[in-house]
């Protein structure tokens, strides 16, 4: 066990998966010599050499498009898109090809591809560097969408994504890249994709959250628990698609109250899908409407004013209290 940041933990997964399997390779802008703009790919070029660590030209569609070809040719590419805001240039390849190849060929050819991308706010960079667009990918049948929240979950889920036979969009909350450390086992570890994690046990209300929202959620939950003597369950979603409906429905049945915290804009996001699931399977167990605490339906403001637009501890705390008091 070592205490690691998320960057170090993801890096550990890449090293171990490339050691374990010769067919794993990494490609993207600045991932080799520069070791990634966040240094996530540190040491890979030195250890594995150029054919398996590729500094590509600057073109997101071709990074994903050529990676699809590599996957069809028997490799397991891990493509890095430098920021998720640029990944939409590759959406044509993801929706049009990566997600469809298995269906298109009746199962003859799958695309075991991982597309890693840092997402979300918090690094004071330019426009297109702060968005949370997981819903766009999650809407596409054939893609899996994974968002880790901590170093250990990032490492274990990335290893699982690399071993997965289907394309996985792996969204890394860059605000959490170096914000805190966690014990990460030295031995290779995977987690099941499609399975949420109970980050905190509780019986009076359940909060669902993922990615960088987990930390303010936990802070708000602690405040409410302390102030009111209640116990609150925190579900760390980890996989957006396929959604772990079972864990969500069980939480409603056991607590009767649910709050969903998402960094993405309010409308048409995962929170809405979670509420639809509760509506379908646990409506009569609800003691209060399921509340969404999200960003607003505006284009993510530039970094000087972005912070106020993301859900913070205060908004989350209020939302939880309103739901408890309903």
């Amino acid at each position: 066990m070592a205490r690691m940041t998320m960057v170090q933990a993801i890096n550990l997964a890449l090293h171990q998966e490339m050691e374990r399997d010769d067919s794993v390779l990494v490609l993207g802008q600045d991932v080799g010599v520069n070791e990634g703009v966040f240094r996530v790919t540190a040491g890979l070029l030195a250890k594995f050499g150029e054919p398996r660590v590729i500094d590509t030209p600057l073109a997101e569609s071709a990074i994903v498009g050529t990676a699809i070809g590599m996957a069809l040719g028997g490799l397991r590419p891990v493509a890095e898109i430098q920021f998720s805001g640029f990944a939409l240039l590759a959406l044509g390849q993801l929706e049009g090809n990566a997600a469809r190849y298995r269906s298109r060929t009746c199962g003859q050819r799958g695309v075991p591809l991982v597309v890693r991308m840092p997402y979300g706010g918090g690094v004071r960079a330019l426009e297109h560097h702060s968005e949370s667009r997981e819903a766009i990918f999650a809407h596409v049948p054939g893609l899996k969408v994974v968002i880790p929240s901590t170093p250990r979950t990032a490492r274990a889920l990335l290893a699982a994504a690399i071993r997965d036979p289907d394309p996985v969009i792996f969204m890394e909350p860059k605000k959490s890249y170096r914000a805190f450390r966690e014990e990460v086992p030295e031995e290779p570890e995977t987690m099941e994709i499609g399975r949420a994690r109970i980050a905190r046990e509780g019986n009076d209300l359940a909060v669902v959250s993922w990615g960088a929202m987990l930390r303010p959620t936990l802070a708000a939950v602690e405040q409410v628990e302390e102030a009111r003597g209640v116990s609150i369950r925190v579900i760390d979603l980890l996989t957006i698609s396929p959604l772990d409906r079972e864990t969500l429905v069980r939480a409603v049945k056991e607590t009767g109250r649910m709050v969903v915290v998402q960094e993405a804009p309010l409308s048409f996001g995962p929170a809405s899908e979670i509420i639809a699931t509760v509506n379908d399977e646990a409506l009569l167990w609800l003691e209060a409407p399921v509340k969404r605490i999200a960003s607003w339906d505006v284009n993510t403001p530039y970094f000087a004013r972005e912070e106020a637009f993301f859900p913070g501890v205060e908004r989350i705390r209020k939302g939880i209290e309103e739901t408890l008091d309903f």
Partner: protein
Amino acid sequence: MPRKIVQRFQVPFLQVLDEKGKVDPKLDPGLPDEDLVRLYEAMILAREADQRMLRLQRQGRIGTFGPATGQEAASVGPALAMGPRDWLVPSFREMGAMLMRGIPLSTILLYWGGWEEGNVFPEEARTLPIAVILASQVPHAVGLAYAERLRGEDAAVVAFFGDGSTSEGDFHEALNFAAVWKAPVVFVCQNNQWAISTPFEKQTASETIAQKAIAYGMPGIRVDGNDPLATYVAVRDALARARAGEGPTLVEALTYRLMMHTTADDPTRYRSDEQVKPWQRRDPLVRTRLLLEKRKLWDDEREAELRARCKETIDEAVKAYETWKPPRPDVPFDRVYATPPAELEAQRKEFLASLPGADAGKGVD
């Protein structure tokens, strides 16, 4: 520092077999007789299948179909140049090449009949499915070529696309990546001069497609795309370069779309018969037959025998297609992921229950 020219470029053109069936002796690849006959037979089968499929579409027996009549040489010449371990990455007018790779015509009929099963090819055909998002297949070819080289294979990749596709970003990005990586890939543009109603001169201000290669640092060559020997030679040479580690090549096969874009298209809305006529005289089948006759490899009797053989092959394929029994209706649920998630299994049950005559929760065999 004086103003000076830092680079000059040339765009070569190649024709080996002219419209009268005459081969330029200096350029003759010296193919054995059986290969010349094979080229001709492959083109006749592709033409006959094309014409039959147009009728099948009009009769409602297949869906929308994109014919390749007049473009056969651009597809079979490259296919003849390919080795068995090479990959074919088609666009959608390469039936001639696909048949030469050993894909059954009945499978191709399934595709145009609206069944994904028409994309399931024999592994030894080493062929990816038809691409509908134009140019999106070109980066796949580059990645596939990279993978083959990384795994130490000697195989190269031949990727097809049309003149319209060369306006797509994926075309440019793919060529750029391939050249930087020196990927063992050959790009073949079937320039049939029409993207539905958009003529070549409205597609690009370049005089040729071939010259687009130069900007990416790879050779480009324009060939007479109605000359199967020229398309063969250009792709043979490009494959040799690819295998030698010298990187990709762009081959522009200048041809002409003699018929409609697809059966859903009416070309009389945007071009006249007068425009088409000169290209009918350049039919690749005519010149190839003239060559075979000159070499005493062909006569009316062999022609009749070949046409009868093609008809039989096509009849059998149509029969296989029309008697093909589709699998159970819920197979799409099996194919989204390697293992369907619980939600998809739940939806499968609802789907099956929604089918006319189906009992809730009971599968249909």
